């Protein structure tokens, strides 16, 4: 039985750890400190924690001002607000200046569940990919979240880290986390499944099922959407000649389209993409929504089979 943990708990803990090591680290939230888990940092370092109430645009601007004076702001809210509501501020005040601001959002994707469409960020990766200078990380589980947070504190420049709401299974990983370097979680020779976030677990489950059908699937955890690990993608194309991408995000502008661009320009490869197809979300349990929006292990299996 794998361990089920909240990625956002790992974020909160990593943030406190960083706060103890580096006094330049400050945390900002917009009335969601309990949910995003910045509250722990606020309790430990009250002078370095700022809540801006329900005003995300101002929060992003303040983060820019703090960064202009050498601070390292970790800014948190839900993904829907951090990416969409304050997009212009993220673009013009943070990314254009290449400020050292870390936007760590939670409650991303369809698995927010019952809150429904208004709270389900399913286009946020596309929004962030539309801004130059932005590094985009989608960790697959809690330990990787901690590694990602520690890594982005070391990195100089803006970063968007996308976390979900529900608990996620902890996955076995051997190598050390590095921004921009994909993690191969399973070797295989017939097909590659490239996934990010919660979809990595589904990809591993699909690979296991495929093995029973006599197909060997390679599973790649593409935790960094930008800079994208092109080498790893092209290696998949060469080794397995077939690629399926999986993301809890719209197909427009997400991981799948990023991978497809790399392949189309270098080694055109038969592909299938798992993701949300031009729809809004809706209320429901995460499990039901995963099925309704065709993001399940069965959907991945079907997509893989189609390529043979």
């Amino acid at each position, binding site marked *: 039985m794998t361990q089920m943990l909240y990625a956002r708990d790992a974020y909160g803990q990593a943030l406190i750890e960083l706060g103890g090591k580096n006094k330049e680290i400050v945390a900002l939230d917009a009335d969601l400190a309990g949910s995003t888990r910045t509250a722990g940092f606020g309790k430990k370092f009250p002078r370095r924690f700022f809540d801006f109430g329900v005003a995300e*645009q101002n929060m992003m601007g303040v983060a*820019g*001002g703090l960064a202009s004076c050498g601070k390292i702001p970790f800014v948190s809210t839900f993904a829907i607000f951090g990416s969409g509501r304050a997009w212009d501020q993220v673009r013009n005040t943070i990314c254009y200046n290449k400020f050292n601001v870390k936007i760590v959002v939670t409650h991303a994707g369809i698995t927010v569940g019952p809150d429904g469409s208004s709270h389900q960020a399913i286009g946020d990766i596309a929004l962030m990919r539309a801004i130059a200078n932005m590094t985009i990380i989608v960790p697959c589980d809690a330990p990787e979240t901690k590694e990602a947070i520690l890594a982005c504190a070391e990195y100089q420049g803006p970063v968007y880290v996308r976390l979900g709401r529900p608990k996620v299974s902890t996955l076995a990983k051997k190598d050390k986390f590095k921004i921009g370097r994909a993690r191969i979680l399973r070797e295989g020779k017939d097909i590659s499944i490239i996934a990010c976030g919660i979809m990595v677990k589904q990809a591993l489950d699909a690979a296991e099922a495929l093995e029973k059908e006599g197909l060997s699937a390679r599973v790649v955890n593409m935790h960094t959407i930008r800079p994208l690990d092109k080498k790893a993608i092209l290696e998949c194309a060469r080794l397995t000649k077939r690629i399926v991408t999986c993301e809890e995000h719209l197909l427009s502008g997400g991981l799948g389209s990023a991978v497809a661009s790399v392949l189309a320009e270098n080694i055109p490869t038969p592909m299938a993409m798992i993701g949300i197809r031009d729809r809004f979300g809706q209320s429901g349990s995460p499990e039901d929504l995963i099925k309704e929006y065709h993001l399940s292990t069965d959907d991945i299996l079907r997509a893989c089979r189609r390529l043979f």
Partner: protein
Amino acid sequence: MPPVKELEKKAKRIRRLIIKMLEKAGSGHPGGSLSSTDILTCLYFAVMRHKPENPRWPQRDRFQMSKGHCCPLGYAVLTEAGYFPEKELWTLRNLGSILQGHPDWRTPGVDVASGSLGQGLSVAIGMVLAGRLDKLPYRVYCLLGDGEIQEGQIWEAAMAAAHYRCDNLCAVLDYNGYQIDGRVKDIMNVEPLTDKWRSFGWHTINIDGHNIAQILAAFDEARTVKDKPTIIIAKTIKGKGVSFMENVVDFHGRAPTQEEAKKALEELK
């Protein structure tokens, strides 16, 4: 402190640079640049502590031009102060220039890019909070436009600045009464301005934004205010100093032609 007469002379020189720069560039925003000239001249040559030879001096007072389209004024002031050679002014808006159409990091003396309106006051709050953490006693100044404050983010920031008791923050509102589409009161009325800022928890000072003595006195008063931010509401004339540009909305965002520039420079002698 330089006497009022000196500052008036300086402001005139800066207005001349604005006209020449815009005429050369062929596009840009003279109206608001000219209406804020006296305010910025006072800030850079009598009020702020800064070191043109060391633009990143940590103790420097900060200035954020939230109404970024008035950067021709900012560039003229910065070159007059010695941040970069005057010849750079003649490259405004050209490919590869350190002087972009709206302010950014290419220009020595510009800390944070602006241009998308409504964002600078938030940036200024960030600078205040950083200074507080670092125990640096610098002050932060922010120039706002009267059209600009129609942006919702301004009021988010207004609330936050009062909440965090940013008493080393002094905003200046260039109240020239015009925006691109016409008169502010016709397009989207922002009055009652003083009441609005007061009710958001700010100390307000109302002045004539072209009276150097009043501008200097307002900045002095702002320095004495405790526990709340200050906004100087400066009544100004759009296009101030050039008769045919004054209160002419067309010159919000249109550069003078060669002939107009010649006439303007005659008036600014």
